[in-house]
């Protein structure tokens, strides 16, 4: 057997898993693993903060479908990557994180830069490992990638004590052994990811699809994770059923399709929200009935029978008890559903007349389109207007990454997604600061695509330093800051629910100076203060391909995100923008 040390074995194992790029930052405990990187074809991107490494790995995974890989040292580096782990766990992002750990004899002694990494990350990872023997490194790496990418994807952490990878330590001596798929499966006796669904349940679901009068497909991020966008389109077109795409599923169904209804939920559009509320059959595909979608659960889609397809059995019945639960892979099950429906159509079965339902839906669309008021004065920038300009000025396969808050909701609302994997955001955890590093990771994974980050000023200040990484590594991402000088979503809640008592929410429009900050980080910085400057700035940014660009848009700080279902309220209590209100709006009966 070939002799090598644990660090070499680890890097070679990553190569064997097909890793071409990893994001990280070295430090004491992980030093021995960084040495063989010099001789490896793997591209390592040196971040400026470990949180950036984690979000870049997530962005890479979102954009490519391949697992993102991050490597950092022990202690504070490990705690800095906890947020991305939790983010990836909530949004089911395949990611493998390698952390250094103090040498085995020092574990438990409160050694320098020691922390209980596997203990801390236990509840924010799909699984984690503390490797105690150099001979276990290759099997553990294989297990980690297998777990991260199969079943419901998620983050897996591998904690590596220094002495099993350090050639100076006798514990690091090992040989090269590459376990087979069968050995990996055997080594995980408690792990049996689901694949195909129960055929009887598929038949029962097909019967419901053929008999419902007011059906709707409620599509979640699981459809993207399962690479099921094509199958979904087949199902929607075959059954002629409308589709809502959740925040995590934007792009899974083209927004310009006649059956597309857009995003449901707290800031979903009126038609998507109300179609779910009034449907008699809710077909949940890879969606998890998140509280931001359901509003008050007791009032959610009250008349609907529910078909729920999910790879994670624990999601079935967690929030809403389905009439037909189907446990398995979304793509396989949607394909089975298409076949089952087609058999019924071929046998002459007809779905009930749904003309009235369709006209009700189009009535809602006409009456309550997504809309915002024109600026009161000619020189004001509405954030939605900025996004519309940006949307109409970039290639249709542009990847859009977003931070968290008002700008995220406006981006999801006003973009027109035409392709899967063009929208990257932090849905479950709602991690401010996600967009800049996620966009960098996406651009590394898809250098052929234009990548824009839409960010708020609050978010930008949390992770902007990764633009130094982007400049140094020549990763030409583009960032649009919607600078409203506030933590905008918090401001909106304080205005609406705290009697306009604005507590600790003001950030200032010009501290920091975003243009000079961008330039200091090696980017091109552009400031836009009036509507006529929007288009030239976007055109200029789109033409720059050798460095990152930051465009700061000074937007109207009073603008709020509408529609809105107030927290804890039923979706029937949806509030449309004030200028659309009146005439029965907000009672959920508009269009009847």
């Amino acid at each position, binding site marked *: 057997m070939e002799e090598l040390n644990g660090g070499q074995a680890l890097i070679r194992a990553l190569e064997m898993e097909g890793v071409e790029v990893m994001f990280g930052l070295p430090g004491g405990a992980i030093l021995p693993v960084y040495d063989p990187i010099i001789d490896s074809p793997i591209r390592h991107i040196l971040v400026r903060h470990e949180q950036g490494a984690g979000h870049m790995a997530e962005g890479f995974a979102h954009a490519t479908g391949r697992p993102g890989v991050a490597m950092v040292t022990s202690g504070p580096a490990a705690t800095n990557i906890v947020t991305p782990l939790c983010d990836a766990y909530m949004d089911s992002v395949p990611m493998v994180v390698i952390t250094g750990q103090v040498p085995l004899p020092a574990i438990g002694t409160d050694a320098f830069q020691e922390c209980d990494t596997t203990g801390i990350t*236990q509840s924010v990872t*799909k699984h984690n490992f*503390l490797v105690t023997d150099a001979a276990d490194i290759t099997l553990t790496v294989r297990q980690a990638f297998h*777990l991260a990418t199969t079943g419901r994807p998620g983050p897996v952490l591998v904690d590596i004590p220094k002495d099993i990878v350090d050639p100076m330590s006798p514990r690091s001596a090992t040989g090269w052994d590459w376990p087979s798929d069968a050995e990996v499966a055997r080594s*995980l*006796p*408690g792990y049996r990811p689901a694949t195909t669904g129960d055929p009887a349940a598929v038949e029962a679901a097909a019967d419901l699809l053929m008999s419902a009068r007011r059906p709707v497909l409620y599509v979640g991020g699981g459809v993207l994770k399962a690479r099921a966008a094509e199958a979904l389109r087949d199902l929607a077109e075959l059954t002629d059923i409308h589709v809502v795409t959740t925040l995590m599923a934007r792009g899974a169904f083209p927004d310009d399709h006649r059956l597309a209804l857009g995003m449901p939920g707290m800031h979903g559009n009126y038609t998507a929200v109300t179609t779910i509320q009034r449907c008699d059959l809710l077909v949940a595909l890879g969606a998890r009935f998140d509280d931001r979608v359901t509003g008050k659960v007791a009032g959610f889609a009250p008349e609907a029978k529910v078909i729920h397809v999910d790879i994670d059995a*624990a999601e079935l*019945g967690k929030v809403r008890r389905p009439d037909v639960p189907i446990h398995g892979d979304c793509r396989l099950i949607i394909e089975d559903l298409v076949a089952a429906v087609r058999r019924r159509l071929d046998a002459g079965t007809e779905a009930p007349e749904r003309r009235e339902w369709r006209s009700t839906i189009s009535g809602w669309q006409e009456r309550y389109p997504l809309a915002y008021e024109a600026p009161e004065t000619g020189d004001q920038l509405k954030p939605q207007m900025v996004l519309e300009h940006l949307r109409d000025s970039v290639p249709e396969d542009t990847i859009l990454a977003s931070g968290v808050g008002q700008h995220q909701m406006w981006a999801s609302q006003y973009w027109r997604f035409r392709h899967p994997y063009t929208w990257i955001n932090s849905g479950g955890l709602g991690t401010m600061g996600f967009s800049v590093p996620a966009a960098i990771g996406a651009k590394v994974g898809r250098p052929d695509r234009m990548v824009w980050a839409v960010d708020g000023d609050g978010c930008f200040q949390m992770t902007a330093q990764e633009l130094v990484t982007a400049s140094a590594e020549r990763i030409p991402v583009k960032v649009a800051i919607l600078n409203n000088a506030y933590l905008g979503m918090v401001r909106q809640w304080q205005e609406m629910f705290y009697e306009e008592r604005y507590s600790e929410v003001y950030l200032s429009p010009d501290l920091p100076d975003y243009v000079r900050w961008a330039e200091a980080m090696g980017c091109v910085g552009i400031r836009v203060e009036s509507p006529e400057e929007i288009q030239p700035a976007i055109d200029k940014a789109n033409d720059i391909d050798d460095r990152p660009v930051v465009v700061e848009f000074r937007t109207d700080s009073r603008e709020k995100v509408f529609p809105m279902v107030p927290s804890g309220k039923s979706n029937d209590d949806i509030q449309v923008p004030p200028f659309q209100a009146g005439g029965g709006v907000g009672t959920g009966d508009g269009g009847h």
Partner: protein
Amino acid sequence: MRERSSGPGAHHVLSVLVENRSGVLSRVANLFSRRGYNIVSLAVAPTQDEQFSRITVVVDVESAPLEQIVKQLDKLVNVVDISELDPRHSVERELMLATVAAPPEMRGQVVELVQIFEGRILAVTHEELTVSLEGHPSKVDDFEEMLRSFGIRDLQRTGRVALPRLSRTPPESAVAAG
């Protein structure tokens, strides 16, 4: 008698087969606390196959959250198998150690009680006795209750362990049915 650990109410007994490696118990226990479920008792030891351990856990929940607990437990990579043991179709045992006040004038009564319950006396001093009792958890409950009147100085119960009850079907009828 009291239904502290033996009643059919909201107590459920889960038998969880796990990989026998470090950290697994912590993962199981962490899952309960993270999802807000209360563990009544928990016993863990390796099975006949040293690769695996069996955790017998008694949880205090209604049936709907129980389904979530089972499904969430099943997601743990180190959890190999989970079954809920119906008390009517399982054998359950628990061990208790107790140190009881037993001054000379009372000692006879304590010894008599231990004999009635078929417990054992493990240690004696002038003022105290340490006794053990193994049995069905409800029997252990009863014994503990009776000991209270003498004054319990120290007490440790193991938490229940359980296995499915063997079928009483005679072999010939099993063949006929099969």
